């Protein structure tokens, strides 16, 4: 008997739970402005998140999926991507959208029941939020194939949760990425929970990252609450992808600190003790401690940042709440480039019925 293939999955971590460097940091740590920009995006995302939940609780927004616990991973994705790269999200990627320039008011419009929330003025090629689990993976390889056909030095990042990796779409897509040598990085945000189903029920594999091996891709694990580990691994993977060296799967290990959505109650299926332990590993606090420790941050700067983020979010909320619903006829106006004759009577009927505007 001989061994045909052996595999390994590397795991990267630079900061301990308190934000102290475990050893030498990667080159990404030398660019302080970049690190501070990441920290700002994390704080802004968390401020936005808590406001969106409050809006839902007071009847001003629909069901909303909290991004609490994903801010570090999502920000690192945003930062590692070039604006010309394409982001293919699932539905808990607020940190990445915000970093890439999706307006906070657009995110609120989406979860507030308005299609214009996906019209994204500043990210014209990014795919919209994908609610059907894992379906976006197939789009990601299609976008990457288009880049490859045209010989472009661009890449795709596709985000998916740990639950999503159980679906065929994920397996089929990483398989194509390997077979066609596509410039796409799959970022599995393993937050331990698919609504109430723990990671252990999704797969018997020791790691999700090792699923990459079966597809002919490298698989990496990062501590998703460790900014340096996540951004370094992404920078490297995207650099390889843009250089025509193929894709990768990165499993970012984090924890969903909030409920699945505002319609969920996580106390039904997980203990307060588990949640407390996860909060002890919070990546935002960790980076803040690091910045303090290095002398890059101060309580005053933190207060200023918190106030600035609150102002930014309040402004977006005001813009969202001031946005009137589209006229009901809009439901027909974007179905096709040109409304087919056969549908015009239905549009006319809507226009007649709601002459005074939406109900």
């Amino acid at each position, binding site marked *: 008997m001989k061994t045909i293939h052996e595999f390994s999955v590397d795991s990267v971590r630079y900061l301990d739970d308190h934000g102290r460097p475990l050893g030498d940091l990667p080159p990404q740590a030398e660019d302080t402005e970049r690190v501070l920009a990441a920290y700002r995006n994390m704080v802004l995302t968390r401020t936005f998140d808590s406001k969106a939940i409050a809006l839902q609780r007071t009847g001003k927004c629909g069901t909303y999926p909290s991004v609490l616990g994903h801010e570090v991973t999502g920000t690192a994705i945003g930062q590692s991507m070039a604006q010309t790269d394409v982001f293919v999200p699932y539905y808990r990627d607020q940190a990445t959208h915000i970093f890439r320039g999706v307006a906070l008011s657009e995110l609120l419009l989406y979860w507030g029941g308005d*299609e214009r929330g996906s019209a994204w003025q500043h990210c014209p090629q990014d795919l919209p939020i994908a609610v059907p689990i894992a*379906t976006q993976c197939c*789009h990601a*390889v*299609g976008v990457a194939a288009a880049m490859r056909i045209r010989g472009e030095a661009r890449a795709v990042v596709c985000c998916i949760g740990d639950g999503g990796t159980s679906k065929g779409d994920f397996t089929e897509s990483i*398989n*194509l990425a390997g077979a066609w040598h596509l410039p796409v990085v799959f970022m599995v945000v393993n937050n331990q929970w698919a609504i109430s189903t723990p990671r252990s029920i999704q797969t018997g594999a020791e790691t999700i990252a090792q699923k990459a091996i079966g597809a002919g891709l490298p698989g990496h694990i990062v501590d998703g609450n460790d900014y340096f580990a996540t951004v370094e691994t992404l920078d490297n993977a995207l650099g390889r992808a843009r250089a025509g060296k193929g894709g990768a799967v990165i499993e970012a290990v984090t924890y969903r600190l909030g409920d699945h959505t505002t319609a969920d109650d996580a106390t039904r299926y997980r203990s307060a003790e588990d949640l407390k332990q996860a909060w002890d590993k919070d990546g935002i606090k960790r980076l803040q401690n690091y910045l303090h420790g290095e002398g890059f941050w101060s309580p005053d700067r933190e207060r200023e940042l918190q106030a600035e983020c609150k102002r930014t979010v309040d402004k977006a909320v005001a813009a969202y709440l001031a946005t009137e619903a589209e006229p009901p006829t809009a439901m027909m106006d974007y179905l096709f480039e040109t409304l087919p004759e056969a549908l015009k009577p239905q549009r006319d009927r809507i226009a007649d019925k709601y002459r005074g505007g939406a109900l």
Partner: protein
Amino acid sequence: MSGSDIRDVTLVEAVNMAIAWEMEHDENVVVLGEDIATNGGVFRATVGLKDRFGFKRVMDTPLAENLIAGTAIGMATQGLRPVAEFQFMGFIYSAMEQIVSHASRMRNRTRGRLSCPLVYRAPFGGGIHAPEHHSESTEALFAHIPGLRVVIPSSPQRAYGLLLAAIRNPDPVVFLEPKRIYRAVTQSVENNGEALPLDTCFTLREGSDVTLISWGASIMETLEAADALAEQGMSAEVIDLGTISPLDRETLLCSVTKTGRAVIVHEACRNGGVGAEVAASIAEGAYLELKAPVIRVTGYDTVMPYYRNEQAYLPQTDDIVEAAKRVIAL
């Protein structure tokens, strides 16, 4: 292209001609599917394309229909115009989520920021002694989905012209090819890049006593029925829907207003079939002109039988003649 290029071709050859023309004239057109590149497709619809346009534009995919559908969507959002082949309609169902939840909605849900100018091709229908899962006609599943166009050719000329229109269309098109007539007849087709209109019925024969409405392979029996009726002194108008959805109700209503009678013929099951939508549209729009109830000649509401019994399932010319005579007698 110089000079006229007129060829006698079968329906499947016309499909190949249309794809090749468009690939020649639009570098954004790419083709993907199972066995479509080196092998040229199991029905040879894409034969020769890889040699002519290269493997970067003519792509053999892994064997995963859901992946093919979704990959085409991603390509389309980048401005490519993918023509994706499903080997048989019977294998398209794992791709339904991509087609229903994404391809048909991308433009709407991004308010026009992204779109899906793609074609999903699939051979469909019975009558070629194929194995299980290779003979169904489930076009109604797609006709029910807002944002999709469902187009079905019934001759080589219409296959050529409608497929060109489908590829050029800025929105997703499900293009279903009646494989029973892939090679049933040849027709002279000019390879000139001229598309036929979508969303428009084709009146294949004018008549005054009854309107026979069909699409796909059943057009063959429907035309035979019209011949038989003519021999017996009855004049049948024959309309090919061409585009199943959205439906050109105007042409149908004009015809029925003239004839006062309609018989709808389709191979698919009766219950919830496209014929039901056609019948309801006629009832709503031409009620006062009708001299008889609208009736349907269709497949039965059962699983498509294996091939020993498939002819017993498929609507036959005599069935159509009998139905037409029944309504004309009223």
